[in-house]
């Protein structure tokens, strides 16, 4: 018995495979170890003694075939050589026969293997691969609608979710280099373990593409930091939920929206990344509205709240750069966000006047008599930013000037002042800052036209955290 064997993998649909069919017949006649695996038509090519039906693509997957035709040589059961497409010299070397295909052109590129077609590769990985997904399998009856099943099992935020099949999860996991079993963190309120695989399953539910997964994973990690305080944010009777701001090149790569309607609907990455985080909290953490989630009203951002900073044409450094990251780094910043309040000023041409105007609006955050409020996010529009850029103002100058106008006279804050009991007791100070430690988060976003900006109110128990996104 010979110590070697030859394997060829072909499909009829490939013109190069059709071209080299006579070569395979020739090799087959001279070497009975040759086995030809065929991916589409089990009868192609004719005249081969050992023609094997691989329409199930198992051998193509196991042999890691990317191109057809591929010719492989095995010695004592181990692969020692392979060539893809048709290169006469290579085929002669691998097969050990010369000359081959004298009447054929010297070379012809091959075609893509059926085993690597989109959608197929994940299916094969589930069928034949070594990656084992650990999550419990839930059988859906043949008469059940799988989306209804997801609703009934409580996996949804109220909108339809994408049924998390093994194939979809394998496809989702292709978006990260991290292994499915790696622990991402412990998710409140029930403090359950959360693996990369569980995040991927919820990213599937949310409708994410695999390339969003690194953003989702980092958002989950950030939400689970002690400083961010996800448990309290979930449990509070206040409006807030987690809001994600993404900075850096990944926002362009995955097509996030930082421009027209950036805080609104219509962009898949924005919508599904924010939703995936909320579904992780719901499904893994057990954070169910009316259960541990005690929000009196909540806010629509609790379905999803995620957008990118418009940094590519910004005159100012981005939020992430302010926080010490390189402009080339991609980052996720999390905020406790209680909803969007419009700030409208279409008249101020002078940067100082616009600061006064912003301050007047910001002072009403929560209540006009509240000082030391948790720092909100000011989403400044491109048109408003231009007022400052045109006047040569840096972001620091803008912030400092704004803070100067955000000092509240204590007399106006006292309980009873203005006929309103809400307020503070008398203290030995003339003024208090509107926002705790004079902190205000500034993010630039929005469309080209509109002299509006936005106040995104915060919640006191959470600290905004930024983390760099890793693949």
């Amino acid at each position, binding site marked *: 018995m010979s110590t070697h064997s030859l394997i060829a993998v072909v499909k009829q649909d490939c013109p190069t495979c059709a071209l080299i069919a006579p070569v395979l017949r020739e090799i087959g006649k001279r070497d009975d170890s040759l086995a030809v695996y065929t991916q589409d038509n089990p009868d192609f090519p004719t005249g081969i003694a050992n023609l094997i039906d691989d329409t199930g693509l198992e051998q193509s997957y196991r042999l890691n075939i990317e191109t057809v035709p591929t010719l492989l040589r095995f010695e004592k059961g181990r692969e020692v050589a392979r060539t893809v497409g048709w290169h006469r010299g290579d085929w002669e070397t691998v097969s050990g026969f010369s000359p081959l295909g004298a009447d054929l052109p010297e070379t012809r590129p091959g075609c893509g293997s059926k085993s690597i077609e989109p959608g197929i590769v994940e299916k094969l990985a589930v069928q034949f691969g070594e990656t084992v997904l650990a999550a*419990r399998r839930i059988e*859906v009856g043949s008469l059940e609608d799988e989306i209804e099943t*997801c609703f009934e099992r409580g996996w949804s935020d109220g909108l339809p979710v994408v*049924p998390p099949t093994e194939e979809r999860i394998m496809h989702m996991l292709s978006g990260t280099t991290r292994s499915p079993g790696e622990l991402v963190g412990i998710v409140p309120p029930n403090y359950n373990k959360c693996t990369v695989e569980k995040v991927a399953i919820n990213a599937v539910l949310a409708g994410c593409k695999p390339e969003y997964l690194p953003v989702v994973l980092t958002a989950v990690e950030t939400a689970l930091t002690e400083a961010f305080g996800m448990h309290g944010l979930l449990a509070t009777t206040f409006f807030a939920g987690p809001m994600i701001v993404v900075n850096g090149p990944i926002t362009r790569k995955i097509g996030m929206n930082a421009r027209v309607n950036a805080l609104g609907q219509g962009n898949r990455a924005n919508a599904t990344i924010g939703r995936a985080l909320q*579904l992780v909290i719901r499904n893994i953490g057990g954070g169910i509205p009316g259960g541990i989630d005690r929000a009196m009203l909540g806010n629509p951002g609790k379905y999803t709240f995620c957008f990118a900073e418009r940094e590519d044409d910004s005159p100012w450094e981005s939020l992430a750069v302010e926080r010490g990251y390189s402009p080339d780094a991609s980052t996720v910043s999390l905020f406790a966000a209680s909803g969007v309040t419009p700030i409208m000023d279409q008249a101020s041409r002078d940067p100082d006047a616009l600061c006064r105007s912003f301050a007047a609006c910001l002072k009403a955050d929560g209540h006009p008599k509240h000082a030391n409020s948790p720092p909100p996010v000011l989403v400044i529009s491109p048109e408003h930013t231009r007022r400052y850029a045109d006047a040569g103002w840096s972001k620091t100058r803008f912030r400092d000037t704004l803070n100067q106008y955000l000092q509240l006279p204590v007399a106006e804050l006292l309980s009873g002042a203005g006929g309103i009991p809400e307020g503070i007791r008398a203290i030995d100070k003339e003024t208090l800052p509107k926002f705790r430690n004079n902190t205000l988060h500034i993010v630039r976003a929005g469309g080209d036209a509109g002299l509006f900006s936005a106040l995104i109110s915060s919640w006191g128990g959470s600290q905004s955290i930024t983390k760099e996104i890793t693949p």
Partner: protein
Amino acid sequence: MKMLDPTSEQKPAQRERVKRPQSLAGLTIGLLDISKNRGDVFLDRIETHLTQRNLKVNRYIKPTFTRPAPIELQQQIATECDVVVEGLAD
């Protein structure tokens, strides 16, 4: 079709039934006649037993046993009753 569980898997894989009440006291009981022959005879006896115990009973009737109850009837029962007794066969 198989799906992978997105939760922390603390609950049984099979969907749990809605919890049964410990007692019927204070609850409204719906009796749904599915329009099958003599279903009303059975439900009349049930009603007699329940009302003797001073329980509140509402009666409902499906237009035909061959189809699911109309949505409007389902909603009416769901908003008016805490539990339902339904005769499924004759």
